[in-house]
């Protein structure tokens, strides 16, 4: 039996290669993700080990209200006095964003943009040119910043810090050992100490941390223990090793999430792969009916027949896993290099390794997926009666009742799971529900296959080859259905997300147009490194003084401790202007200017936190003591503004006591454009901040959705490629099955081009059918999601018509491409051989 299995395996190389390719690609995605994240993990660990290699112990103030604390200058001496300390140097670190020669702020893909105080003690740097900063108008920058912005020693450079842009002269350029321009793609600028303190911390004589060098004979751990007992509980004392580990762990946490996302998409690709393999095995089993029946009539048991098919699947799964693992290693290495060069900005890669997780998951996933796909065909094979060997091999169309009922049940179960998922906010339930829904729809697909296919086919069957192609695609509804369903999955997911995002855009636009009365919005860009732009509080007064301005107010926000829990708090400069521009209604109490220890909250927030008029909350901001704030009024449910606001007097207690955004309403009759022009100069020295009218602002906000959609499309590309392989596979198998028909057609005078056209039409019909299914299912998923998110503010339903049409066109093109190889194969058939084909 084993021999017979392996023989039949080898005799059908092409179809096996095609179906194995689906597994290979899926496994490649899985192992590639693991290799990529593993490599990046180790690279970042190396990076931080490197960063902290000159630090024995570091002393920082305890984090206050979620913001890093600062240390007074006197602490340096206190630390240095401790026994075992060789040297203690106060450090100043903060955010400094350089402006490039084109006037735009230089950005990174995620690495920080740092400002620091030049201490003259920089142990691991190499001066490339010039010196450290000697005067308060000089900076020394790293070579990566120099090359990114095209700066040379002696050039002017503008930097945005806590303060708007300031001009400096480049005194020197430094790099790192090994000719590296940066440690990990960061852009950094060193100031003189007082300048750094003023610009980065906003306070003279303070430090962010103290770098401690141990005296000879004192270990890092000993020194840490001694320092923490001497300094007391207000300070955090860590060894350099610990710091490196903490930082690396934090990155690893992020990478883990990234890995999950990649694996989720790999899962989708494999899910699609199951359809393809299932289809291939079904077709192979159907074609082998006589062979299997012969085996049965010769005394093979049902178990042996099942075993034969399952063994075949196992072998394919095993081979595909090995190949997929190898390919994944290559892809992971490639992506890591790509990331290091472009994403992270010259991150030094640790050696590419093959983590155990990649190996295990590759084999598990590859083999399990193939086996799952083979179960149904194997069972079907075992039910072939021995007498079938004597009959003509044609398998009659089985009734569709069972799959239809099963499909309806699974679809209902999937829908229910999704519903629960939304209620309980469980991503796993939602995702599982969606996948179950796909299986359900796939089972229902054969039912709609005939009418749909003939409908789509009608558009293409103006000629005889077209008609034949259409008839062929309607010939085996199950096969066409599974092939199309595989394509459906990817397109449905994209369409679903697209419907949600289009609806979100429509909702936001409508909300902005109907409920927000602000005409101009001042906001800053948020950097990939987590920095957000800000501007001085008194800008609001300057704006209000401009003719045509009716009202203006701004928000400042930061994480803080609210009743000992970390959460985001906002301060508003003028709560009345906020109420007026956002159209808020009082629910409890009345709108009135907030006192220093008063707060206003939304109805939702009140319910959520169980608060009412007069309730209090203890809030610890970054600076100053914890303060008890009293709820002065509650505003009614609004989609524009939720949560809580503190009075404007709280702003000065924030770590960065500046505004993040502001809203301006002009007088009726005044020109919005004129007002915009008149206030833009206030931000001339702050290129991170922009003034936009309402619709431009909404457009900018919603344009982020396009990026999200693009990312999803890229990640789903593999699932779609696998589905295309499925189309190719189905066509190739059909060509083999219909060899004699093709021979006959050629014999009675069908030209090669016509044969190719016939196959192409069949292919297009299947692909477009898949796309139509995908768009329909995706729209349903999207609408369901939008309905579930009604309370989250997605009140409008929008449909991405253009995108849908694009997918249909793409599907048609995909159909043409998928048909190329099978069509060439069909056209090349030798007429006589084909007629004689058994």
């Amino acid at each position, binding site marked *: 039996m084993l021999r017979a299995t392996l023989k039949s395996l080898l005799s059908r190389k092409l179809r096996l290669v095609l179906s194995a390719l689906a597994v290979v690609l899926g496994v490649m995605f899985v192992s590639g993700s693991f290799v990529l994240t593993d490599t990046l993990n180790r690279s970042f660990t190396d990076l931080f080990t490197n960063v902290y290699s000159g630090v024995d112990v570091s002393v920082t103030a305890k984090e206050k209200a979620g913001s890093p604390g600062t240390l007074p200058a006197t602490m340096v001496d206190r630390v240095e006095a401790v026994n075992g300390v060789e040297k203690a140097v106060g450090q100043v670190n903060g955010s400094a964003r350089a402006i490039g020669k084109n006037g735009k702020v230089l950005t990174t893909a995620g690495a920080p943009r740092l400002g620091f105080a030049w201490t003259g003690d920089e142990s691991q740097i190499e001066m490339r040119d010039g010196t450290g900063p000697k005067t308060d108008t000089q900076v020394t920058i790293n070579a990566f910043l120099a090359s990114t912005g095209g700066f040379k020693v002696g050039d002017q450079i503008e930097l945005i810090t806590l303060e708007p842009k300031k001009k400096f002269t480049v005194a020197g350029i430094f790099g790192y050992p090994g000719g590296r321009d940066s440690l990990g793609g960061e852009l950094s600028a060193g100031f003189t100490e007082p300048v750094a303190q003023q610009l980065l911390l906003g306070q003279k004589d303070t430090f962010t941390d103290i770098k401690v060098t141990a005296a000879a004979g004192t270990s890092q751990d000993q020194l840490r223990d001694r320092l923490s007992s001497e300094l007391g509980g207000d300070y955090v004392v860590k060894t350099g090793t610990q710091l490196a580990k903490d930082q690396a762990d934090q990155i690893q946490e992020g990478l883990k999430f990234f890995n999950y996302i990649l694996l989720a998409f790999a899962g989708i690709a494999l899910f699609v792969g199951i359809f393809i393999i299932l289809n291939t095995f079904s077709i192979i089993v159907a074609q082998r009916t006589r062979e299997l029946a012969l085996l049965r009539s010769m005394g093979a048991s049902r178990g042996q027949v099942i075993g034969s098919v399952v063994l075949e699947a196992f072998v394919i799964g095993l081979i595909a896993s090995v190949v997929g693992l190898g390919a994944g290693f290559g892809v992971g290495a490639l992506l890591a290099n790509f990331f290091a060069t472009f994403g992270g900005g010259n991150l030094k890669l640790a050696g590419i390794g093959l983590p155990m997780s990649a190996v295990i998951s590759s084999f598990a996933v590859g083999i399990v997926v193939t086996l799952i796909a083979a179960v149904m065909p194997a069972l079907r094979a075992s039910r072939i009666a021995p007498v079938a060997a004597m009959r003509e091999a044609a398998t009659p169309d089985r009734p569709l009742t069972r799959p239809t009922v099963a499909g309806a049940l699974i679809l209902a179960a999937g829908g229910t799971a999704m519903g629960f998922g939304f209620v309980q906010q469980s991503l796993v339930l939602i995702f599982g529900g969606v996948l179950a829904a796909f299986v359900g729809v796939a089972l229902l697909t054969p039912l709609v296959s005939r009418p749909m296919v003939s409908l789509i086919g009608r558009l293409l069957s103006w000629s005889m*080859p077209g008609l034949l192609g259409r008839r062929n695609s309607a*010939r085996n509804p199950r096969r066409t259905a599974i092939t199309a369903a595989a394509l459906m999955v990817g397109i449905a997911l994209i369409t679903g997300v697209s419907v949600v995002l289009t609806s979100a855009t429509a909702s936001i636009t409508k909300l902005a147009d109907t409920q927000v009365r602000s005409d101009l919005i001042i906001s800053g860009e948020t950097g990939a490194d987590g920095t957000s732009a800000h501007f001085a509080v008194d800008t609001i007064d300057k704006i209000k003084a401009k003719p045509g301005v009716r009202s203006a107010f701004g928000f400042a926000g930061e994480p803080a401790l609210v009743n000992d829990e970390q959460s985001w708090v906002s301060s508003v400069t003028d709560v009345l202007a906020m109420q007026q521009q956002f159209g808020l209604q009082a629910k409890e109490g009345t709108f009135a200017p907030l006192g220093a220890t008063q707060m206003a909250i939304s109805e939702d927030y009140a319910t959520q936190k169980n608060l009412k008029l007069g309730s209090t909350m203890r809030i610890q901001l970054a600076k100053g003591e914890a303060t008890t704030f009293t709820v002065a009024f509650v505003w009614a449910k609004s989609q524009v503004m939720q949560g809580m606001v503190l009075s404007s007097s709280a702003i000065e207690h924030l770590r960065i006591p500046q505004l993040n955004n502001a809203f301006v309403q002009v007088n009726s009759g005044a020109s919005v454009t004129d007002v915009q022009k008149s206030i833009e100069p206030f931000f001339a020295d702050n290129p991170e901040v922009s003034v936009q009218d309402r619709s431009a602002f909404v457009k900018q906000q919603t344009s982020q959705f396009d990026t999200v959609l693009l990312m999803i499309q890229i990640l789903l590309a593999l699932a779609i490629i696998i589905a295309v392989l499925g189309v190719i596979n189905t066509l190739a198998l059909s060509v083999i099955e219909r060899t004699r028909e093709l021979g*006959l057609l050629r*014999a*009675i*005078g*069908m*030209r090669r081009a016509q044969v190719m056209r016939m196959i192409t039409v069949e292919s297009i019909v299947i692909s477009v059918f898949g796309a139509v299914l995908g768009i329909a299912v995706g729209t349903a998923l999207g609408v369901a999601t939008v309905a579930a998110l009604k309370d989250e503010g997605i009140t409008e339903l929008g449909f991405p018509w253009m995108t849908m049409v694009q997918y249909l066109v793409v599907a048609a093109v995909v159909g043409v491409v998928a048909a190329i190889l099978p069509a060439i194969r069909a056209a090349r058939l030798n*007429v006589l051989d084909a007629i004689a084909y058994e």
Partner: protein
Amino acid sequence: MGTSGVAASAVDVWKSYGSGDAAVTALAGVSVEFERERFTAIMGPSGSGKSTLMHCLAGLDDVTKGEVWIGDTKVTGLKDKGLTELRRDQVGFVFQQFNLLPTLTAEENITLPLAIGGRKVDRAWFDTVIDTVGLRDRLSHRPTQLSGGQQQRVACARALVSRPEVVFADEPTGNLDSRSGAEVLGFLQKSAREFGQTIVMVTHDPNAASYADRVIFLADGLIVNEILDPTADAVLETMKHLDAFVGAQ
């Protein structure tokens, strides 16, 4: 249509398969002409090269040496495109089995060569053919809904409907019972006599051959005999001699 009285001809046609020791000579210098409007049968024992000759004549296979003509067209040397068009426009086929496309109705199968060539159906001619084969009430049926004899009659109708220069039939009755076979053969005979259709039929059944106007005998890749206006007995007699002749070699 051509001007001469010959619909198809082979001139010193050789055909061998394989090479070296394994080479098989299926045709060893066959020269034959098939006159217009006649029904010719090719007979011979199994393996004598009947099918090979027919394939070469019909442009389904190329010859090793010699020339093949269909009407005024020299088939030998044509490229695939030319051959395809030749088969489509000037040749009709009836194979022993699997003549029809299962996805098409009987009528669509019959008009398939015309549809492929983008030609219009001559309705009057179509009706004549259909009525002659007696398929009028089966036109909308699929092949699986037809009996073997009906299927072969559909195949005959298809071969005729484009009014080809010549219709080739390779053992068209080989898979049929004698009654269905007789119907098909009667139809082929009628096509030649009443409609002037040139027909070349390969068979090894003397009875089938007796429907033809002329029978040529093939043995070991050579034409060894010929009978005009054959009867089944005469054919049988010749076959016996042929067997003796082959046996003697």
